C-alpha cells in the first residue's frame, strides 16, 4: 500500500522560500502569482494492506517525525 504525505507550513508562518520563488517567477514574466507556499512531499511504500491501519500508521509517523507540528500541517493520502 502506498501513502502520499504533503507537509506544508501552517497558515501564519512566514515562508521566505515561497516569497523568493514568487519573486523569481515574477522576474521570469509569470505575473499574477499572489502567493507561493513551499512544502514537502513524501511517498511511502508500506507493508500494511489495510487502508485504515495504513492511515493510522502514517498519521503517527507524521506526528512523531515527518512533520514538526509547531510550524507544519500535513495531509495524508492512501493509494492502492
Amino acid at each position, binding site marked *: 500500500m502506498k501513502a502520499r504525505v504533503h507537509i506544508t507550513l501552517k497558515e501564519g508562518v512566514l515562508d*521566505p522560500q515561497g516569497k523568493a520563488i514568487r519573486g523569481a517567477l515574477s522576474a521570469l514574466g509569470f505575473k499574477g502569482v499572489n502567493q507561493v507556499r513551499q512544502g514537502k512531499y513524501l511517498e511511502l511504500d508500506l507493508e500494511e494492506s489495510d487502508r485504515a491501519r495504513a492511515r493510522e500508521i502514517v498519521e503517527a509517523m507524521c506526528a*512523531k*517525525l*515527518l512533520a*514538526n507540528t*509547531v*510550524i507544519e500541517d500535513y495531509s495524508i493520502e492512501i493509494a492502492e
Partner: protein
Amino acid sequence: MKAAVILFPGSNRDRDVRMALAASTGRDPLVVWHKERDFPEVDLIVIPGGFSYGDYLRSGAMAAHSPVMREVASRTNKGVPVLGICNGFQILTETGLLPGALMPNASLKFVCRDVHLRVETSQSLFTNRYQAGQTIRAPVAHHAGNYFADDATLDALEEEGLVAFRYCTPDGVANEASNPNGSARNIAGIFNRTKTVLGLMPHPENAVDPLLGSADGNPLFDGLVEALS
C-alpha cells in the same frame, strides 16, 4: 563539575565546546556517541553545534530521535542541566524539551558573523555571572536560526522570564536591524520552565579568548562551574 558532550554524526563544534569546558572546569568532558543508551552520571549535558545527520528532513529532527536523546530527555526530566548550542538548540526544540522551532533564516542565507546579545536575566545557572541588561558579543553560524513560536507561547516565555538572550545593537537595543535571522521578538536563546535547560543559537564556546574576537562567553561556562560544583 563533570560535563558530557553529546556527539552526533555531523556535529562540528564539539571540540570547541570541549575546549571551553576544559578551560573552565579543569578537566576534559566526557564525550558520548549518539548510539549510546546510557552514560555515567554528569552535572551538565552539552549538545554542540553542527549539522547532525546532515540536517535531513529538518535541522535536528533526526538527532531528536536518536538513542542518546531518549536518555538526555529522561535526565532532563530529573533536573540535570542541559545546554544546547546552535544545532543543539534545534535538537532541543525538535525533542520538545524547549518550546517553538528554528526555521530557515528570513534572508535564506547562511549567517556567519559576530552579533551582540542582551542578557535578559542573571537569575539562572547559565547567566549568573552576567548582569541583566548587559550586552555581550559572540558569533553566530547558522542557516536555520529563525526562532518561531505562536504568540501565546512567546507571551508565556516573556511573562515567565524564560527569554535568556536577545539579538541587539552594540548598545543593547533589540530591533530589526540587529536581528540576524528574523527570530520572533529578537530571541536568541530560551530556558525551559525550570531554567535547567538553555538553548541558544550563538556560540559562547567560540567567544572564550580575546584572540577569537571576544571572551564574553567565559562567564557562561565559569558560572556553570560555580553553580554546579
